[in-house]
C-alpha cells in the first residue's frame, strides 16, 4: 500500500457577482475631475472615462476596501462612502452580510481569509459566538507555526469503531469507512436541489473523497460514477433501489418511522443513517439507533428553527445532550454523529465538533457559494434573482471544493493552536473550550451589578 497525501484540488473560481460593501458616491456638482482620487486609491476604484478622459468614470464600488483615503484627499469633498443596502440587508440568521462575503471569498480562492487589524465583531454573544477554543502555550507535538500542518489528521470514521475484535461471532464485519475530511455535503436538508446544484455538489463530494446527502427524488439524476459517494435520504415506501449508493438515511419520528432494523438488515454493507431533527429529538432516538446498529446519527434542523439565536442555543444544548447521553451509555464509539444545520462559517466546524459531533454537514452555505437560492428560500441572498440557475457545473463544483479546502485549512489552524494532531480527539472536548457565561461568572462574579434604572453616563 502506497502512502497518499490527501490533497484538495483548489483553483480560482471568481464570484459571478462580487459583494459590494459600500457605494462610492461622487457628487458631480462638486467634482473638479482633477484625478486626485485616482492617485490616492490603491485598489483601482477611480479612473477616467475611456471615451472622454476629461471626465471621471463612475467609481467601481466592488473594488473598494473602505480605506477612506480618496474621501480624505478629495480637494472639494466630492466623494462619500455609503453602506450598500443590498449588502447590509442580505442574509438572515447566522448568515450575516459579513459571513456571506467571507464565504464568497473562501469559495473564490480556497484560501484562509487573512486580514490585518484587530477582531471587529461583538465581544461574544449567544450560540457559537459565546464560545472560544483553547490554545496551548508551549506544548506542541508536531507543529511549527503553520508549517507541519500536513502532520495533523482531519480523517474521521463513518460507522461503529469496535472497542475490541470479536472472532467468535463469525459473521463478516464491515470496518468503518474513513473519510479524510470531517465534512459531509448535505443538499437534502434545504429541499430538492435543482439539477445544477445536485451535479455540482455530488461531484465536489467525490473530489473531496467524502459523501453528499441527497433526497431520494434526486437519485435518478445522479450519474453512475458518482453514486458510490452519495447518501440517499429516503421517505417511507422508498426503501429499495439504492443499493448502488454509499448508504441511505431515514428520518426519525417518535411514533412511527422507518423500520430501522429491517433497513439495516437489507443493506448490511451500506451506511445506514438515522436523521434526527432538532424538533423531534429525544433520547429514544439514540436507543433506537443503537439497537438497530446504524452507522450514523445525523442530527440536524430545519433552517427556520435556528433563524433566531434561541434556536441556535437550543441546538447547542441538544447536541451536547446527544453526545453526553451516548457517553453515559458507554456507546459513543458505537455510532458516528453527524451534525448539520446552523453551520455558516469555518469556525462552526471545530465548535460543533467540540460540542460532540464527529462530522459536520454544511447545507445552506453550499447554496450561498454557488450563488443559488435554495428551494425553500431559506437563505436571503438579496440581489440574487429568485432562481439563479447554476448552469456552469464545473464552476459550482470548484466553488464548493474551494470552500471545503478553506474550511479544512482553518480547522487545521484551530487544531494546531490547540496543540492537537487529529480531529478525532477534538470531539466532545468541552474542557478545551471557553464558554462565555462560565468565564464571565469567574472573571466578573465579584463585581456588583448596577441597578438597571440608572443608565450609562453618556456626556
Amino acid at each position, binding site marked *: 500500500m502506497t502512502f497518499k497525501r490527501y490533497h484538495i484540488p483548489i483553483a480560482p473560481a471568481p464570484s459571478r457577482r462580487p459583494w459590494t460593501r459600500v457605494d462610492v*458616491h461622487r457628487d458631480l456638482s462638486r467634482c473638479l475631475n482633477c484625478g486626485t482620487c485616482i492617485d490616492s486609491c490603491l485598489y483601482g476604484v477611480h479612473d477616467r472615462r475611456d471615451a472622454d478622459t476629461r471626465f471621471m468614470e463612475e467609481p467601481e464600488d466592488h473594488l473598494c476596501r*473602505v*480605506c477612506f483615503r480618496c474621501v480624505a484627499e478629495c480637494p472639494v469633498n466630492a466623494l462619500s462612502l455609503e453602506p450598500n443596502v443590498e449588502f447590509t440587508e442580505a442574509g438572515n440568521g447566522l448568515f450575516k452580510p459579513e459571513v456571506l462575503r467571507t464565504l464568497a471569498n473562501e469559495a473564490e480562492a480556497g484560501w484562509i481569509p487573512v486580514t490585518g487589524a484587530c477582531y471587529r465583531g461583538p465581544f461574544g454573544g449567544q450560540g457559537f459566538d459565546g464560545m472560544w477554543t483553547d*490554545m496551548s502555550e508551549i506544548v506542541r507535538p508536531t507543529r511549527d507555526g503553520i508549517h507541519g500542518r500536513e502532520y495533523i489528521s482531519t480523517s474521521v470514521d463513518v460507522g461503529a469503531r469496535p472497542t475490541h475484535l470479536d472472532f467468535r461471532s463469525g459473521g463478516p464485519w464491515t470496518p468503518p469507512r474513513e473519510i479524510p475530511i470531517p465534512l459531509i455535503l448535505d443538499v437534502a436538508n434545504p429541499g430538492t436541489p435543482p439539477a445544477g446544484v445536485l451535479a455540482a455538489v455530488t461531484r465536489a463530494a467525490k473530489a473531496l473523497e467524502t459523501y453528499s446527502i441527497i433526497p431520494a427524488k434526486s437519485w435518478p439524476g445522479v450519474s453512475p460514477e458518482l453514486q458510490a459517494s452519495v447518501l440517499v435520504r429516503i421517505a417511507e415506501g422508498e426503501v429499495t433501489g439504492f443499493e448502488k449508493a454509499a448508504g441511505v438515511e431515514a428520518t426519525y419520528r417518535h411514533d412511527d418511522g422507518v423500520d430501522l432494523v429491517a433497513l439495516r438488515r437489507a443493506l448490511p454493507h451500506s451506511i445506514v443513517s438515522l436523521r434526527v431533527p432538532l424538533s423531534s429529538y429525544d433520547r429514544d432516538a439514540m436507543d433506537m439507533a443503537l439497537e438497530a446498529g446504524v452507522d450514523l446519527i445525523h442530527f440536524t434542523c430545519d433552517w427556520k428553527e435556528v433563524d433566531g439565536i434561541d434556536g441556535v442555543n437550543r441546538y447547542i444544548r441538544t447536541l451536547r445532550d446527544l453526545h453526553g447521553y451516548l457517553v453515559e451509555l458507554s456507546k459513543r464509539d458505537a455510532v458516528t454523529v453527524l451534525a448539520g444545520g446552523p453551520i455558516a462559517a469555518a469556525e462552526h466546524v471545530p465548535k460543533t465538533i467540540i460540542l460532540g459531533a464527529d462530522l459536520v454537514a454544511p447545507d445552506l452555505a453550499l447554496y450561498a457559494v454557488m450563488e443559488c437560492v435554495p428551494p425553500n428560500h431559506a437563505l436571503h441572498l438579496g440581489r440574487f434573482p429568485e432562481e439563479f440557475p447554476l448552469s456552469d457545473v464545473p464552476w459550482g463544483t470548484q466553488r464548493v471544493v474551494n470552500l471545503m479546502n478553506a474550511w479544512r485549512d482553518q480547522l487545521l489552524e484551530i487544531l494546531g493552536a490547540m496543540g492537537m494532531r487529529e480531529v478525532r480527539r477534538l470531539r466532545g472536548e468541552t474542557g478545551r473550550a471557553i464558554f462565555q457565561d462560565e468565564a464571565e461568572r469567574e472573571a466578573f462574579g465579584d463585581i456588583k451589578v*448596577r441597578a438597571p434604572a440608572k443608565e450609562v453616563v453618556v456626556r
Partner: protein
Amino acid sequence: MITLDKDPPHVEELKRLLPGPQAYRAYISKWLVNVNDACIDCGICAEVCPFGVHERKEGDLHLSAPKSQRCIGEACETQDFYCVKHCPVDAITIQKNPLAEVLGNPRWTNEMIMATWVMAETGKAPERGLEYRIGRAGGGFDLLDFDFPPSKRRYDPESLTGIDTSLPLNRRGTGAKIEIPIPWYGGGMSFGSVSLQIMLARAIAATAWNTFTSTGEGGYPEELVPYKDHVITQVATGMFGVREETVQRARLVEIKYAQGAKPGLGGHLLGDKNTPVVAKMRETVAGTSLFSPFPFHSVYSVEDHRKHVDWIRAMNPTALVSAKVSTPTDVDMVAVGCYYAGVNIVHLDGGYGGTGAAPDISKKNIAMPIEFAVPKVHKFLEKEGIRDEVVLMASGGIRTAWDAAKAIALGADGVILGTADLIAVGCVLCGNCESGRGCPWGITTTDPELSQLIQPEWGAQKISNMYRAWQLELREVLARLNLDSVKDLRGRTDLLVRIPNGPSPSGGVAKW
C-alpha cells in the same frame, strides 16, 4: 537603506503640547455641516458657534468652509447658539455624515476612533458629542463602568498633577529599577508589519514620555538606536534580527511566546510586504511569505523558559525581562510558570488584539479576551503569594484610558498599546494591512512611496498628544474615585460595576 527626509526632532520639543494636525484636508466627522450658495457671508454663525465650526479668517471676505469635525450635531438643536436657527437665509444644514456608517465596529466604534483622532490632534479628550469611554461590543470592558461616589464636583484634569500615574516595571529584589510615568507602553509591531517611520514615531513618543515601545519580531533598525533606552528588543519565535548587540542595548527585553490575535500560530508577514529592505533586516528572501514558527522549539517546559530568561540575562545582566503570552484556559498556570522562570513582567495579550496579518478565524475564536484573563491571573498570583513580585501588563483590545483604568481595576498593573497608537497617527481600522502595498495611509506598509506619507516627528507628536489626553483622563478617573495613585487602583473590583444592558451593538458601527 531607508532614508528619512530630515533628522528626527529633539525629544524636548515633544514634551510640550503641540498641535498634531491631520494630514489630509477632509475630516471623517460624525456630523456634516453644509453651507449652500444662499450664504451672504454675514458671519452671524461664526459669532454664535462656541465650537468654532464657522470661522472667518482675519481679512477674508468669505467665511471659511465649515469645520464639521467640531460640530456637536443634534445636541445643539435645543441650544441658543444653534447656527441653523440663526442663519438669516437658511443656508446651513446639518446632517449625519454617511461616512460614519461605514467606519468602526462594535469594539472600536466610529466615535471612539474619531475621539482618538481629536486626542491626537489637541492633547485633550473631545469635550462633548463623541462617546469615547465605552464601546458597543456588548461584553468585557463595554459592560463595566466605575462606581463613582456621588459628587457634584467637576474636576479640571489639567490641575490634577498631584495624582501619581507612575508604574515601576521591576518588583523583584534584584535588577535595574525602572519606573515609567504612565502605566502603559507600546506593544511590539515589527519592521515589516509597520514602516520604519511609524517605529520611529513610536520610539520618539516613548522617549518623550520616558516609557517604552517594542521592536516587534522583525529586527532592530539602526535608526532606532538613538532611542535605545526606550525601545524594547523583542525576541520572538522567528528570531528575525535578534543579535547579541540588539539584546545588549535594551533596558527591557521581551520574549514573545504568543500573540492574542493569532494565538498558537506564530507571526505572519505575507510575501507582498516582505520587500528587499525588510528581507535584509530579517535575513530572508524578499517576496516570500514569512510565517514564524510556533512555539520556540527550545522551550517545551517552564525549565526551558527559565533557560531562555537566563540566556537573555547572560548577554545583558541588567535588562528586565518580559514574557508575552496569550490567554488559554490555563493562563493562570502560564503566569506562574513565567514567574518561576524569573521574568519581571508577565504580559498577557488577549484575543482581541491587533495584528498586521492574521487568519480571521483566529482573531475571534482562539483563546479568551483580556477582560477574562486579567482577573483570573491576578487572583491566582495573589493566592500563590507572588503577586507583588511580578508586574502584570494587559494588552489586546485596550482602546481608551478608560479601558486601561478598568484593566487595572481588574488586576493588571498597567497596559500595553498597539492599535491605539496607530489610530492616533490616522489609522481608520480598514484592515487592509496584510497584503499588496499595505496600508493606504502609509502606516502598516513597507512600500517606499507610501511610507513617506508619515513623518516620524509628526507621528510622534500625535502619539504623544494622545498619551497626554489619556493621562488626563486617567487622573480624572482616579480623582473621582478619591485615589491618589494608580497603584491603589490595582485589583479594586469593588470600584467597578457591571452594566446589565450595555450600549446597543447596533449604533456607532459600520452597518454590516
